[in-house]
């Protein structure tokens, strides 16, 4: 495995910037420039690059879709949220139509925000492509077909040109798929969700979203420490603050940055990616969250190796 590309990082519901958000960013950038003149484009780019991410960028608003780029020709994708549209377009642009590809898609669970991009995933309409949808829910195929039945969607599932297969996986068991061992794990979420641990010869990535952690259950805690063990990257549901996750939003099926740090520290993981961002949070709030999470890691690190912490955003590519 070489790198991971985040195509959709927002939780529950896709969102977009409003005119007010854009205006605030422009105003903040102009204030930071403070009348400065830029003689060349390079100088301007340099100035923009040093602005805070909440001003010069955005975390984006597409729902969950993550690509794990492996060493072989097959494509590995986690979830089919609305980010799958851009991913599909990028694949068509890169490989063209008469160049059949194999896509392995791993579905965490059947909630809409994790499936809604499937009908917009362009490779599914081109004959010659092979799409294997992996998951642990018995109704996986039914759910995907259902969202493409009238009146839910104008194009029926039967119009798919690609060969689409479904693979019902067994939780806790490693499945060898195109050079990568993939192990699903049951997670606490309404209707169940599954995390996936991807292991190549020299790299490990864990995708663990829509997963609530019950803090009074040490057995579960230990099981997740093993699931995350020594991972190069853990993609973690950090939707809520810890206080929310254990009080007003208990049993809503999500976790927090604090639990992400603790589990990754205990598991000796190398990097934690905060993921499944709360749709209510703007770029400033998400920037604050990453800063606080890095500080938490720093003050609780003790004698451990530092844990690298990033916050996923749409379009981010992370080398493993």
């Amino acid at each position, binding site marked *: 495995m070489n790198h991971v590309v985040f195509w959709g990082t927002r939780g529950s519901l896709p969102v977009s910037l409003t005119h007010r958000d854009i205006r605030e960013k422009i105003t903040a950038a102009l204030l930071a420039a403070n009348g400065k003149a830029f003689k060349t484009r390079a100088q301007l780019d340099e100035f923009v690059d040093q602005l805070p991410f909440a001003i010069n960028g955005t975390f984006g608003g597409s729902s969950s879709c993550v690509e794990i780029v492996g060493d072989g020709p097959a494509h590995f994708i986690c979830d089919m949220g609305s980010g799958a549209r851009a991913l599909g377009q990028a694949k068509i642009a890169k490989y063209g139509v008469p160049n059949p590809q194999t896509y392995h898609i791993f579905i965490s669970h059947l909630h809409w925000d994790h499936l809604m991009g499937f009908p917009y995933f362009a490779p599914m309409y081109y004959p010659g492509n092979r799409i294997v949808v992996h998951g642990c829910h018995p109704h996986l195929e039914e759910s995907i077909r259902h969202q493409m039945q009238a009146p839910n969607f104008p194009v029926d599932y039967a119009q798919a040109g690609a060969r689409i297969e479904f693979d019902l996986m067994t939780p806790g068991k490693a499945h060898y798929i195109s050079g990568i061992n993939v192990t699903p794990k049951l997670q606490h979420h309404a209707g169940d969700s599954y995390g996936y641990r991807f292991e190549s010869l020299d790299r490990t990535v864990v995708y663990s979203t829509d997963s609530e952690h019950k*803090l*009074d259950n040490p057995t579960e805690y230990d099981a997740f420490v093993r699931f995350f063990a020594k991972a190069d990257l853990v993609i973690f549901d950090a939707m809520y603050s810890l206080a929310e996750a254990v009080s007003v939003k208990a049993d809503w099926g999500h976790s*927090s940055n604090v639990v992400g740090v603790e589990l990754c520290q205990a598991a000796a993981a190398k990097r934690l990616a905060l993921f499944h961002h709360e749709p209510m949070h703007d770029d400033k709030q998400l920037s604050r969250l990453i800063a606080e999470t890095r500080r938490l890691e720093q003050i609780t690190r003790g004698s451990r190796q530092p844990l690298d912490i990033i916050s996923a955003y749409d379009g981010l590519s992370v080398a493993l």
Partner: protein
Amino acid sequence: MNLPTREQAGVLIVSVSGRIDHIASEEFTRALEPLLAGCVKGKAALLLDFSAVDYISSAGLRVLMMASRRAKAQQGTFAIAALQPLVQEVFAISRFNLIVPCYASVDAACKVVGA
């Protein structure tokens, strides 16, 4: 877990110390149980002196949330005081400072929650 108690200004002050991690939190729950049983309307407020606590994990924070919730249900008064700076940061990052009453010192807390 040993939780020494003392009284000040009509407040039952409980000294908590050490690390409240995932393992210690179970013991912390059990040790708090009899103290919470008495944290009811008309009885002394229960104040945890955290000045000797140097680490608290999410599981430990959850114990505090459950304690605060129980005291509230019993119409008792429950609070925490004298957090070390790093522990105070953990409270702020986890937003627990918003759901559990925290005071800068035991004296400051007693002035507010005392009889």
